[in-house]
């Protein structure tokens, strides 16, 4: 079942009083980005000038413990790419392009009807996919231990992302950085498919009759879609950054925010998206082993800048990249091919089968990441209480909580939460695989036979995570 302009859900702009008014204010996005921007730059400063010990530095605790948990376990499932709505990283670049923080400029030079500064070059067609995001995220995560434990590394990466985003906004039109480069955007794109909310047109016929296309080209009321998608044709959440511009620009008042069933978008449309799913589930597995596992040697290998075991790191990095880019895709390809043979549907192109079945990894991967993140917040959440009083780790005690003892919050309850989370992930994975098999092979026995290999593989993956978490 794909979300489509015609799909039915609860129209939140009608159901929630005041929401439409709020989201259609021109100042809305600026108002939510601004406080986030202040926090972000404080974290960069804390990362550079604060304590090098991660558990005593607000940049590590707030970003990699609190933000990460809220992002993966709350924001993405409940509110799709709402992080992109409030993200401070493209702030300066977008400000440069628009020469406005709140208002709209109309005229030339620009994009569509909007006047925009910068070179306004088109992003290269060859890179108009998420391969760059795939590789940049995998690369960052290969050095993940340094990133999430060393404040200075985190600060440099944050600052680097802002610099890169600003430079790309100067050269390329609209949010090329967010759409094609940002490593965070890539996995938000993938897992937003599961989210309970979507932005869609209310009535597709109204969009079909519309000649104005202000949602795409912009106008007096708002900017054309900064993500360069056609809001009137949105049928998946992947590339909608929830900036709410289309709610403001639509001259027919035909765009809305809907609540919908979990995992309403199930289809991946290209190898880049499928590989994002492979990379993400491989990283969930790797991080569950490295960070949450008991094996010291693997921790040493993943932490070469401190432990100096670069040979071990080469082995770890090679294994991680092989798992993400070769082993997991090969297993899914083999299962998909076997499914096609079992279904007796050798006439269906293998690409269609492979991409269709790869969609099972979206709910499974998201739930694996949520399960991984549960002990992270339960065990380390109490550091939040410390760092709000001593954000730089310099001996301050602003709120009197700097010496609050490390107090894990019922860490023994984590497995009892992780098991149902994995169960939900597998349920939606099996449902996604079954849905695709029925659409590809028909509703008869062929669908059941065709889905079987991928269903068994998905169950094996879920059992593997279960063993890691509670075995």
């Amino acid at each position, binding site marked *: 079942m794909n979300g489509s302009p015609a799909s039915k859900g609860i129209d939140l702009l009608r159901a929630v009083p005041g929401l439409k008014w709020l989201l259609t204010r021109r100042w809305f996005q600026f108002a939510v980005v601004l406080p986030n921007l202040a926090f972000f730059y404080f974290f960069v400063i804390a990362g550079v000038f604060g304590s090098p010990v991660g558990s005593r530095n607000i940049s590590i605790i707030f970003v990699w413990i609190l933000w990460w948990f809220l992002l993966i376990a709350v924001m993405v499932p409940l509110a799709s790419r709402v992080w992109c709505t409030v993200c401070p990283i493209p702030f300066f670049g977008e400000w440069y392009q628009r020469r406005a923080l709140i208002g709209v400029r109309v005229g030339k030079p620009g994009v569509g009807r909007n006047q925009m500064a910068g070179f306004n070059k088109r992003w290269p067609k060859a890179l108009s996919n998420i391969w760059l995001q795939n590789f940049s995220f995998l690369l960052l995560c290969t050095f993940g231990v340094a990133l999430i434990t060393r404040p200075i590394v985190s600060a440099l990466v944050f600052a680097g992302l802002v610099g890169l985003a600003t430079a790309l906004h100067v050269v390329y039109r609209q949010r090329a950085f967010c759409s094609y480069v940002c490593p965070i955007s890539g996995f938000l794109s993938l897992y937003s498919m599961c989210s309970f909310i979507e932005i869609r047109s209310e009535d597709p016929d109204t969009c079909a009759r519309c000649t104005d296309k202000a949602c795409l080209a912009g106008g007096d009321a708002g900017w054309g879609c900064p993500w360069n998608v056609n809001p009137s044709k949105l049928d998946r959440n992947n590339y909608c950054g929830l900036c709410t511009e289309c709610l403001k620009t639509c001259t027919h008042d035909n765009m809305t925010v809907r609540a919908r069933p979990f995992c309403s978008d199930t289809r991946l449309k290209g190898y880049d998206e499928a590989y994002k799913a492979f990379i993400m589930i491989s990283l969930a597995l790797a991080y569950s082993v490295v960070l949450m596992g008991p094996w010291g040697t693997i921790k040493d290998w993943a932490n070469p800048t401190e432990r100096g075991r670069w040979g071990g790191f080469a082995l770890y990095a090679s294994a991680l990249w092989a798992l993400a880019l070769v082993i997991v895709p090969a297993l899914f390809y083999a299962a998909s091919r076997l499914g096609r043979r079992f279904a007796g549907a050798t006439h269906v192109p293998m690409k269609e089968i492979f991409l269709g079945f790869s969609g099972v990894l979206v709910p499974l991967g998201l739930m694996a990441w949520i399960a991984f993140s549960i002990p992270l917040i339960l065990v380390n959440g109490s550091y939040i209480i410390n760092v709000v009083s001593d954000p730089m780790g310099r001996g301050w005690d602003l709120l009197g909580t700097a010496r609050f003892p490390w107090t894990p919050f019922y860490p023994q309850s984590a497995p009892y939460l992780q098991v149902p989370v994995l169960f939900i992930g597998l349920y939606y994975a099996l449902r996604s695989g079954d849905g695709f098999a029925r659409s590809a092979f028909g509703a008869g026995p062929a669908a059941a036979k065709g889905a079987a290999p991928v*269903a068994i593989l998905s169950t094996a993956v879920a059992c593997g995570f279960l063993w890691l978490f509670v075995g």
Partner: protein
Amino acid sequence: MKVAVALLIVGAAAAAGALFPSASAPQERRIKMTARQYAFDPAVLKVNKGDTLRLRITSLDVTHGFFLEAFDLKVAIIPDSPYLEVSHPSRPDEAPKKVEELVFVADKAGKFRYRCSRTCGSMHPFMQGELVVAPNRLLGGGLGGLLGLLFAGAFLALRRSAATP
């Protein structure tokens, strides 16, 4: 009706899985453990419910902690010291006791992590080991439930395909 049968399959598989694990008779186990940045050795302790564990823990580098979740135990492991300083998180006002070995009964079944509780370096929050106390019914029940979900899905798919002309 079909959904009820599917739920029954999942429930039965989870229950069967939970009943499957077994444990041997309790015994006393003496374990020598070392702590270093960022690992315990042994990293995994597999015991049976009711076992008495006698742990002698030494640090190979800096001061480490040993916090065993669900067992109300927190230990300071000081390099070159023959003693462990044992305290109970539920009794924060009580002074730590100096002991040569940490003794406790594994009276709960399942998987429990022991973690370093003294900041010992950059990867300190991830320094942990595992105490696996048999019978681990959550693992058995979880695996049974996941396999039950697969079987339930197969059942529904086969019922549907049988009804399709």
